[in-house]
């Protein structure tokens, strides 16, 4: 299996985000997390609910099994049975995320999307992040604008930032002060490289190598979920 690509490792790592999720709405943003959620549904988490990104819940065969327009998504957010995987223009060591603006919010040097649903997601239910290009510009000491709430600002009973999956590693916040640590580095990536590409010090005790996709998973990714290899566009080989 020496031909397994980095993108395929990332898809499997995203699938693992949903382990134990059961009948929960998976809301993956971006290609690799979407492939990961579908992969989880077809393997370990058949109970997962998947939306088409518009208004329907779909089975793996793309049959409509439910209606979920935006207003009902907000109901699910508040209800809490949801695990979102958002993108991030910036993420900091406590898991604060920024998709709003770079620079001063009053007059940004670069306006981005806006807060979108990040404040509501992070205060209500499990949230993970996907970073396709792990670099010091994305993994920053402190984000410019807090859209998604991190552990140093967490309030309320439901805050739960789970993991950050990048093109280099899987990271979480299972440290005494809830700062980010390396869970696993992807095959071919050293802990040093992950640290060099991160602006803040990363805890790295007991780092493992990110698992390879199984034969069954590779077959699903290559023949069923992404037969045209669009995943290589998001994470180059």
């Amino acid at each position, binding site marked *: 299996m020496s031909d397994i690509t980095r993108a395929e490792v990332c898809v499997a790592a995203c699938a693992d985000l949903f382990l134990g999720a059961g009948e929960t709405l998976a809301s993956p943003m971006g290609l690799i997390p979407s492939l990961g959620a579908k992969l989880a549904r077809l393997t370990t988490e058949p109970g997962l609910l998947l939306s088409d990104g*518009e*208004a*329907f819940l779909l089975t793996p065969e793309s049959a409509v099994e439910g*209606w979920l*327009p*935006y*207003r009902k998504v*907000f109901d699910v*957010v*508040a209800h809490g049975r949801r695990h979102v995987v958002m993108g991030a223009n910036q993420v900091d060591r406590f898991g604060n995320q920024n998709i*709003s*603006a770079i620079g001063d*919010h*009053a*007059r*940004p*040097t*670069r*306006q*981005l*999307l*806006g*807060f*979108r*649903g*990040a*404040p*509501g997601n*992070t*205060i*209500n239910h499990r949230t993970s992040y996907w970073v396709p290009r792990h670099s010091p510009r994305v993994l920053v000491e402190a984000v410019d*604008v*807090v*859209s*998604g*709430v991190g552990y140093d*600002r*967490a*309030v*309320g009973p*439901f*805050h739960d930032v789970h993991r950050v999956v990048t093109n280099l590693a899987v990271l979480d916040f299972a440290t005494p002060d809830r700062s980010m640590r390396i869970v696993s580095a992807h095959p071919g990536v050293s802990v040093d490289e992950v640290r060099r590409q991160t602006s803040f010090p990363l805890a790295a005790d007991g780092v493992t190598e990110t698992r390879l996709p199984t034969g069954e998973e590779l077959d699903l990714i290559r023949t069923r979920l992404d037969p045209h290899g669009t995943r290589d566009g998001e994470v180059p080989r």
Partner: protein
Amino acid sequence: MRDKRMTADEAVGEIEDGMTVGIGGWGSRRKPMTLVKALLRSGVTGLTVVTYGGPDAGLLCAAGKVRKLVYGFVSLDSIPYDPWFKRARETGAIEVLELDEGMLQTGLRAAGHRLPFLPIRAGLGSDVLTYAPELKTVRSPYDDGEELVAMPALELDVALVHLNRADRHGNAQYLGPDPYFDDLFCLAADKRYVSCEQVVETFDGPPQTLLLNRMMVDGVVEAPGGAGFTSCVPDYGRDEALQREYADAATDLEQWPDFYERFLG
């Protein structure tokens, strides 16, 4: 029963300088673009615009109509960022109230229910509250004592929405998969104008698709293609080529006057 049919210019003629205008749809989906164009042609300025923002926000910023924008995001969907909105922000041309998307819905709901605020968790711990100090929190009077955001009512002077079908009295129907928040925009507003692909005598399809009733509407504008270039399924999808032209012209301002003239027709 009242015949509420009118032209887009007549509907927009009710909007005065400084008013708060809510615009329905979502991103680059089922935006009332014919009504927005009429607003662009009008002399009105100094508006506060409340929207799940798409090219409506961008175009109104381009025309200098916006004093303050209230939004959860601004996006063209297939193009992540609206260039005119970006420019308005990066040059400090507009004031903003940037919210979580769910807070925007909750603010509209509070206005529709004639409540001063509704509690919501979204916003706590984030910079939403940092940059909008006018937003306050409220503590539960029950044993939990939880602190929540007191999302203030987003009261609108005018709501502009676009649906697939309407009758002359203001009953209106969406035929796509998502109603978005057009009913909430209408309930939050004093004056409510719906444009539609077609004015009909009777409605086909399930009654659950009748999103607006005539209590919620003051004017009906027949505007075939009236959401373009945003999508209005099943009548039509997004005109991606025209949206791309918009975004290119908004990025390269030498192209803008020509595009804008053609776009306004």
